[in-house]
Each structure stands twice: as C-alpha cells, then as structure tokens.
C-alpha cells in the first residue's frame, strides 16, 4: 500500500500541470527558487546567456547580473567561490558545464565542501550549496561528454547526491535540494533535457531526498538504477513480461547518497532476485555498494546472485556507445540468466 502510493504520488496533487521537458522543468524550478530567496545566486560557465543546455535561459534578465553571472573557465575557483558565498549567508546553485569537467573542483568538493561543517563544528557550513552538472551518455559524447561520476563522490562522506529521471522528478528533487541544508551534487543526465517529457505540476512541491521511487511494481526480480537507466529498465521489464512472463519491479534510486535502503531491501526480500544497473563503469561503481549492502541484508531471501549490468571498465567510446551502454538487451539477458540460476 505504502509503496503504491509513493509511486503514484503525483496523481494526488490537485493543481494544474504543464507538459514540459526536463530542461524546462529545471529552468522554471531555478526561476522559482530565485524568486523565493533573494539571497540565492546562480553562476557557472556561460550561465549568463542561458547556458550551453539552455537551463538558465531568462534568469539573468529577470534577476540581474549580480545574481546570475558567468564565471571564468575555472572549476576549482567556481566551487571555492560558491563556498565563500554560502559562508557569507547566501544560497548558491553552481553549474559545472559537464560532469566530465568537475574534476578540477574535486579538491574543493572533497576537502572543503564536504568537510566544512564538520571541521567548523557547525559554526559555518556549506549547506546552501547545490552543484548542478549534466552527466551521462548523450549518443555522441565520447570520453569527455558522457561520464557518470556519482561514485567518485559517493565515496566522500558529507555530501548528498541526487539524480532525476525526468521533468517531474527534476523539479521536486531540485526544490528539495535547494531546501536541504547540506551540500548537494545534482547530476542531470543530459540526454533527458530534451528526451524526457512529462506533466509537471505548476505548484511548488518537493520529492524527499533519500527516497527511492518504485516505478513499476513486480514480483519476480528487482531492478535498481537511476537517471537514464530507469527508462531502459522499464523497456526491459516490458519485454521480460511479454516474452518471458517475468514480472520486474523497477526502482529509481533518485538519491545515491543517502540511498533508500528500506525500499530497495523490502523489494529484494519480496522478489528474491536483483539487478543493479548504471552507465558508469562496473568496477567500484555505485552498483558495487548497493550489491554489497543488499546481499548483506537480504542474503537469506536471495534465489540468485545479484547481477550488475553496467558500463565496461573502459573509457566511454564514441564508436561503440551502443555496446558500451547497459542497454535493454543486456538487461533482458541478465534477468533471464538470473531467473534461470
């Protein structure tokens, strides 16, 4: 009962809604956040004219150059600047142009953002910071425009990591991230900016950080993923139902850290089988963490080993993207193998 309500949660909102893609949802959410809090500031490379993915279109016109501005091409300086602004009492949405370029800021994120509150004993914190970055495969991105980087940061205590699968989730999760008083990395699968469309309520709402979404209820096997993988898991689930009579429960993790261990383990105890899937390379990807914890808590319920269907341990190649990705056929194959274990 509880899970069904959550999955269908959006139907309970009575307000008007608008069809839009994920880019527009993010744009409108940021606009709303800026209106609600005049101490909020948004910046990043090329954010001023609207951003290379158009997520910040119109913001500078409405809120002015003091609050919406371009930074120099310097990610370490970008995040450091955000830290200083937060410490001075502002809220910040800092945009890193591509998740692939977040690494110059790795030191600031791991050694400063994540540790600020702890080492200052909460006298100061960087809780007003949301770092947004487009991530994941886009069809033609190759090595430096396709990376999924969540596991590098999931290993760092003190951060939260959120990944939306569509416009409805993007608005709710981004609103929640802005409200949350901890630093948050908000990774947006860039292919979903245009490809994910849906109905988004006009009113303000949040989706809780740390809560997974059971997108499809099933009984034979649990699939856990996020971002672009959710649609792939649903595609595989349809085929598995129609062609193999296998009932798949699909879970969108939504928050990587701290993740919804209750929802996931409840599901695996019910189905007895699990596939964890993400675009990032399999070794030490976040799937490893999930697999480890799920098997620890669901050991006696498991009918088969947990499978990981992920990117290979190579760099993201241009020519062979269709083979690299944890595709629908790979998910179907893995599920069949698991059912036959």
């Amino acid at each position, binding site marked *: 009962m509880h899970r069904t309500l959550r999955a269908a949660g959006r139907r309970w909102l009575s307000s008007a809604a608008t069809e839009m893609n994920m880019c527009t949802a993010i744009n409108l959410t940021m606009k709303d956040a800026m209106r609600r809090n005049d101490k909020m500031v948004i910046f990043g490379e090329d954010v001023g004219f609207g951003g290379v993915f158009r997520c910040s279109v119109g913001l500078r016109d409405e809120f002015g150059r003091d609050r919406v501005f371009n930074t*120099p091409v310097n990610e370490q300086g970008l995040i450091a600047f955000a830290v200083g602004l937060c410490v001075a009492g502002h809220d910040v949405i800092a945009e890193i142009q591509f998740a692939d370029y977040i690494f110059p800021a790795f030191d600031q994120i791991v050694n400063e953002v994540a540790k600020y*509150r702890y080492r200052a004993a909460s006298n100061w914190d960087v809780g007003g910071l949301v770092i947004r970055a487009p991530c994941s495969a886009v069809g033609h991105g190759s090595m430096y425009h396709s990376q999924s980087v969540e596991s590098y940061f999931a290993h760092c205590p003190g951060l939260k990591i959120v990944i939306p699968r569509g416009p409805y989730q993007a608005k709710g999760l981004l609103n929640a991230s802005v409200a949350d008083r901890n630093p948050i990395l908000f990774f947006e699968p860039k292919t979903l900016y245009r490809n994910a469309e849906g109905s988004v309520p006009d009113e303000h709402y949040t989706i809780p950080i740390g809560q997974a979404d059971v997108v499809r209820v099933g009984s034979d096997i649990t699939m856990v993923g996020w971002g672009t993988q959710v649609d792939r898991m649903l595609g595989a689930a349809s085929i598995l139902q129609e062609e193999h009579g296998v009932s798949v429960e699909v879970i969108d993790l939504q928050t990587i850290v701290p993740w919804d*261990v209750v929802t996931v383990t409840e599901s695996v105890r019910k189905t007895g089988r699990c596939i964890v899937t993400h675009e990032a390379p399999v070794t030490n990807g976040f799937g490893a963490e999930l697999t480890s914890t799920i098997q620890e808590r669901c050991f006696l319920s498991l009918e088969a080993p947990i499978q990981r269907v992920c990117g290979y341990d190579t760099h993201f190649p241009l020519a062979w993207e269709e083979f690299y990705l944890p595709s629908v056929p790979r998910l179907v194959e893995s599920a069949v193998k698991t059912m036959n274990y």
Partner: protein
Amino acid sequence: MGTDGKVAEGVEMPFSWEDATKMYECMVRSSVYDVALSEMQRQGRITFYCTNHGEEAASTASGAAFEPQDMIWPQYRELGMFLWRGLTTESIVDCCMGNEGDEAKGRALPVHYMLPEANVQVVHAVLGTHIAQAPGAGYAYKLNGEDRCSVAYFGDGAASEGDALSALNYASVLKCQTVFVCRNNGYSISTPVSDQYAGDGIAARGAAFDIPTIRIDGNDVFAVYNGVKAARKHCVENKEPVLVELMTYRVGDHTTSDNSSAYRPEGEVESNIEEGKHPIDRFKLYLEANGRWDAEKEKALRKKAHTEIMTAMKAGENKKRANPTHMFTDMYDELPWHLKEQHDSMHAHIQNNRDKYNTKAYRDL
C-alpha cells in the same frame, strides 16, 4: 620604522599607545606560546605544533588593521592575528591537545583554531583552498553594500597553488571586497622562494589581474598597519580586491616535524633577526625610546604569558576527550540512517570491548 626602532621623518604612530601596547603584548605572547608549545611537543604532551617566529608583526599588525566584522580566512601561521581577535590561551591549548574544550571537539590537528564569534574561519591543512573562497564572501559583502571585506592570509608557497591564481582572477573580474595578504617568509617547508617562482614574488601577479597591489616590509609594525589599513579602505570604498605582500622571514622550522638546519645555510636565521631585525625587538626599541616600555614590563609580560600557557596546559591535561559520538555529529545537519547505524555499531563494539580501549579518556564513555 627602521630596524633601530626609529621612525622616518614625518611618520607618526598610526594608532593609540593603548593599541600599540596591546599589539606588542600579542606579539610577545605569540612568541612565548610558540616556545612553550614547541617544548610541549618535544615532551610528547601535544603531537604537533607550528610556530610563528619572525612573523609576529606581519600577523598582529595586519590583524589590527582590519575591522572586527571583516571575515578572515587564515592559513596556519597567523597566531598574532588570532590573539588580536581574542583567541584565548585555553582555546589554543585545548585545540592543540584535541580535548573536549576544543571548539572543533578535537577533530583536527593542533593549531587548527577558529574564532566564530570574532569572524575567523577554521585553520585547515589543505594548502591554499581558502584563498579562492574569500572572494565569494567578498562578493556577498559587495552585493549587500556592507562596510566589510573578506581576507585570505597565505604564504609564498600556497601562492603557487591553482586556487591562489583562481582567487585573483575571480576576485578581480567579479569585483569582490577581498584583501589578499601574502606572508612571503622565504620558505615553504624546505623550498626557498628561488625554487617556488621565477617572477617578482607574489606582488607581480596582482598587476596581471589589474588588482591594486602593495608590497610591504612585513617586519615593520607601522608599515604593515598603515599598508593593510589603506588596502582595506581602498577595497571597501572601490569594491574591488587588493593584494598585499608582506616581506618577512620564517625564523622557526616549518613545524615540529621539520628541522630547518637540514636545508638552511648556516647563519641565515641569525642574520635575519640580529640588530633589531626581529619584529619584536624592532617594535620594542620604539616603545622603549618613547618611554612606553622597559625591561621590567618586558619581564612581567613574559612571565605572565608563560604562566598563562602553563596554566592552560595543566588544565588541558586534566580534560577529557569528547565522546566518540561526535565522530558522527556535524557530518550533516541531521544524522542520516547509515551514520546512525555506524554510530550505534561503534558504541556497541566499544561496550563489548571496554578493556581494549582507553575509554576513561573520553567523556561519558
């Protein structure tokens, strides 16, 4: 002010005698504490210490030139500034001992002080990361029209970090009310400035970013005070950053883990502090010449400072360490499930293995 303690023609003391005395006292206390705490490290009573020898004027006079509302991001060799802003002896010792009296609950290394009530950010070990953070606050103060600047202290070594260059760029292009104070003390651990940069110190870099810059004799209390005060005024009035380079000399070792005689030419330290070159001696000469200080006052001050640190040390050694529950607090605003589980698991383990740990040293364990 020359190394003979005499001021140049037309120069007047830029502060009151009361402030002059307070400044001198901070400088001496810094020095006395440095000696005592280094000694304590050698005795194994604290694990580590970082002295400020030779930089007392750079630190104290610059600290005194800022306003109380200015937010300072320190590096780790600015005890004079911390003392000027009110860091207590007890706080110093508790931090160095990592006991429960420490504001950070013993989480960090010695000398990692903070002064939330006096606007000084936490000292931290990663070099230079703070330099690029100060401009963010300086931008906020500008936006909010405040008579306030942010300050980043850093050394000649930290100035090589990417964050330092990033800071100058961001502060200048986004126009931030930030004063950068570089203590060029000649060394970054064992690396002399000749191995650190080829250009004309750190001051030359300001021009590249169109940042008003001033280079000052960092051992001259008057020059430091006047220069930093002017820098701050320019910064806040013009809403733009200023770069200050204080030329000084690191008299002591880098930290207690270092032995600088391994890399410094013999006689170099002495030649930098003899005949009034040491900032404390220099300022003392001036105060004495003006009848404001004498040998008796000096003796009393040094004795008082020594007693302060010894008293704090004795009290500190009787304090417990914070309960290890605080390993898990302040990680987030609220404890997430996985930290709650780990916290409970840790405590259960401790209770089941009390004899294997030094539980008595911790509060309520």
